[in-house]
């Protein structure tokens, strides 16, 4: 099938640095994406520790109010735009061509362009900290008119987000073409690995939703710099328009941030249960359903603006619970009757399922409109976001790293350190974020730099801060495991986990051109079929 002829000058070896900079190889780009996004995970994490330090005690003056607004805004912006959204492009870049048995992405050069748009955008966004007026400080939601008031850091933020959006839009087109056009012989759409399916729906969401965000940001930029009045009621504009357009993108975006994580978990659970994913087609349709419904619920972030058709958006939001519930059943059904082992990737996958379950349940509170009137913009919503994005997405990221590390780097991460990492992170996460439910119910609004002693929120905040630092500590065994792995030779076989999908049919790491030969694809588990070619169990 599709293969890319790479002209080679014999005898000439590019210096390694140049090789990384000039590469159009999807695997190398995937690795670059992973390094880049994990770097910003660390940056965002440090900002989060600053936030938690400030909030640990009442009436604290560790950072000032202005600095606090910049810190939490940049924490969210880094975590969403520079970590979680592009990290899936990293996994996708590395894995999609391998999983469908292709030699590369459909447009390797455009792929390199997608990646190289990220570093300048990240730099630009963070350079806000050194300009007059500081970095963007209006929240990652940049609500107008507040976003009209702040300094040039906000303009830098706007441009950075537009560039990041362009990167993910062209990346999405690349993924779609790759999956539609370059699948191995025999791989019908319904034999595609489930991670690819989640990348496919994610790419569709990015293609359709991200340009809307770009339009909104351009309007905001015009309002700020050229006297536009899109969001200015004094000039006939409409303040709530910003929120409508922003959430029209950003609700689908929350699925952009989690669907590939669901895909990773749905790769890991079957392998370590030694059973196929339970209800593969139901999972695919649920993913498509979430993607579609995701476009009709945006105003549930705006129930308290008084300008939302409450029954419609309440209903659609509840309906999203249906495909979400289907997935929980998919995962349970996969475990049920299996033969389950618990290496580190599996622990993170199970962590994902249990934490995402809570994230779905506490989302339901906000879907019940009158309850949302109480909980909106309180720490309850902060708990919800983190149960889905941290307990969900971040656990999936680490599950994926432990799972594919042998494939990508040819070495295995130490199991003991991995388990320690998981336990510390799981406990730290719950200690950090569960108390936020109580704080929200007790009336603590989000995005406040200080709270009064008399509010009575100190004990729970202190607890939460302790949990946040425990999460930071959990990174130590992970980093040690990575260093230890890189000190050892590449010793991993093609398929160390007895897995199902095509990336395990080639060497670890794979050669430049990916495959010497492909096994026949007769189901969504070609490697399982190859291992049990007598037909047993099918």
């Amino acid at each position, binding site marked *: 099938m599709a293969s890319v002829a790479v002209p080679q000058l014999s005898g000439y070896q590019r210096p390694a640095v140049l090789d990384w900079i000039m590469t159009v190889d999807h695997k190398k780009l995937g690795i670059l994406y992973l390094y880049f996004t994990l770097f910003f995970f660390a940056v965002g994490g440090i900002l989060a520790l600053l936030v938690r330090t400030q909030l640990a005690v009442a009436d604290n003056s560790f950072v000032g109010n202005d600095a606090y607004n910049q810190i939490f805004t940049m924490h969210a912006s880094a975590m969403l735009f520079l970590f979680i959204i592009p990290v899936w492009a990293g996994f996708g870049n590395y894995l999609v061509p391998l999983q469908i048995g292709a030699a590369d992405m459909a447009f390797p050069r455009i792929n390199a362009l997608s990646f190289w748009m990220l570093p300048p955008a990240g730099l630009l966004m963070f350079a806000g900290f050194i300009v007059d007026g500081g970095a963007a400080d209006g929240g990652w939601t940049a609500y107008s008119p507040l976003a009209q008031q702040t300094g040039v850091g906000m303009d830098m933020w706007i441009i950075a987000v537009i560039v990041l959006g362009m990167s993910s839009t062209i990346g999405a087109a690349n993924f779609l073409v790759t999956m539609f056009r370059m699948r191995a012989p025999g791989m019908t759409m319904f034999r595609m690995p489930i991670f690819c399916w989640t990348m496919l729906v994610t790419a569709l969401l990015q293609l359709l939703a991200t340009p809307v965000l770009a339009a909104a940001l351009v309007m905001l930029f015009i309002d700020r710099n050229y006297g536009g009045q899109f969001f200015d009621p004094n000039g006939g504009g409409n303040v709530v328009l910003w929120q409508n357009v922003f959430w029209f993108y950003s609700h689908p975006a929350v699925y952009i941030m989690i669907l590939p994580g669901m895909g990773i978990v749905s790769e890991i659970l079957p392998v370590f249960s030694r059973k196929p994913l339970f*209800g593969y087609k139901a999972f695919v349709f649920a993913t498509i359903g979430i993607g579609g419904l995701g476009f009709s619920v945006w105003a549930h972030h705006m129930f308290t603006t008084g300008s939302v058709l409450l029954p419609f958006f309440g209903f659609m939001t509840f309906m999203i619970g249906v495909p979400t519930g289907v997935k929980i059943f998919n995962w349970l059904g996969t475990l049920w009757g299996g033969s389950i082992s618990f290496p580190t990737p599996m622990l993170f996958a199970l962590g994902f399922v249990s934490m995402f379950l809570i994230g779905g349940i506490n989302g339901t509170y906000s*879907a019940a409109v009158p309850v949302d009137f109480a909980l909106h913009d309180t720490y309850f919503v902060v708990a919800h976001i983190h149960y889905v994005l941290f307990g969900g997405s971040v656990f999936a990221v680490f599950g994926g790293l432990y799972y594919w590390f042998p494939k990508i780097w040819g070495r295995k991460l130490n199991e003991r350190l991995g388990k320690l990492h998981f336990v510390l992170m799981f406990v730290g996460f719950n200690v950090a974020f569960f108390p936020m439910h109580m704080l929200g119910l007790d009336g603590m609004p989000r995005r406040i730099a200080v709270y009064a002693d008399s509010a009575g929120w100190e004990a729970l905040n202190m607890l939460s801060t302790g949990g946040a630092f425990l999460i930071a500590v959990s990174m130590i065994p992970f980093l040690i495991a990575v260093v230890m792995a890189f000190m050892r030779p590449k010793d991993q076989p093609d398929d160390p*986990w007895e897995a199902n999908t095509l990336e395990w049919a080639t060497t670890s790491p794979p050669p430049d051109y990916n495959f010497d030969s492909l096994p026949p694809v007769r189901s969504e588990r070609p490697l399982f079929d190859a291992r049990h070619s007598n037909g047993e169990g099918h």
Partner: protein
Amino acid sequence: MRRVPLPRRLRLFFATGVAAMLALAATGTASAIQPGGITDEARLMNELFWIVTIAGLAVFVLVGAALVYAMIRYRRQGDELPPQFHGGAKIEAAMVGVPVVIVIALFTISMITLVQIDDKAEDDALTIEVTGFQFSWQFAYNMDDLGTNTDAAAEGTIAIIGTPQNDPVLVMPVDEPVEFLLKSNDVIHSFYVKDFLYKLDLIPGRENSFTVTARETGDFSAQCAELCGTNHALMRFVVRVVERDEFDAWVAEEAARQLGTGTRVSASGQ
């Protein structure tokens, strides 16, 4: 692959982990009921909160228990391959049906609550005009619009204006509907009184309003819930719910001070 029986320690870890989470969830939700809100509307919302909580806990406990059970019961005990079950039409239909029933039920109940809350709105209620600004509040009372049973002590409007350092006090009578008119001229703020279990945004270019009937007297702390700039965290205020006669006395006193027309109240007050 090596056989991996689940070590006892790990089993213990899972069991205690789940027990701890259940306990945490229970205490968390239990702590939530304490105040329960002080208005008729809040009580309705509180009921809905409990219905959602019970449904949520039921789902959590059932799914959580199934998860833990599966992990223990179906842990790998040998190399023999388990039955390769892919799913089936009936069970997949149930996977859709169960959540459909749950979410439609919850949606219906929420809408019933929403309608009940809206029903409470009344025209002749006392109206308080709330203006949010960076970074405090103004509460204005029009002397023509003080509720059904008050004769205006004067013409005009009395206003309470706060500063970030000095939280303004919103005084309102108990046991009668009070309407809040919400306005802003700079950025978006949100009028959030935790004990109303309610918040509504103040949006430039738009006027929002809502009505509540408070059933308890006392001082209740409240604050802005929408990020509005540097001192957003200091946009605090106090809602003081008092008996009607106390409210009338307070109005008369403020009118005397602000409008200079009051003769009924001595100026010596606090």
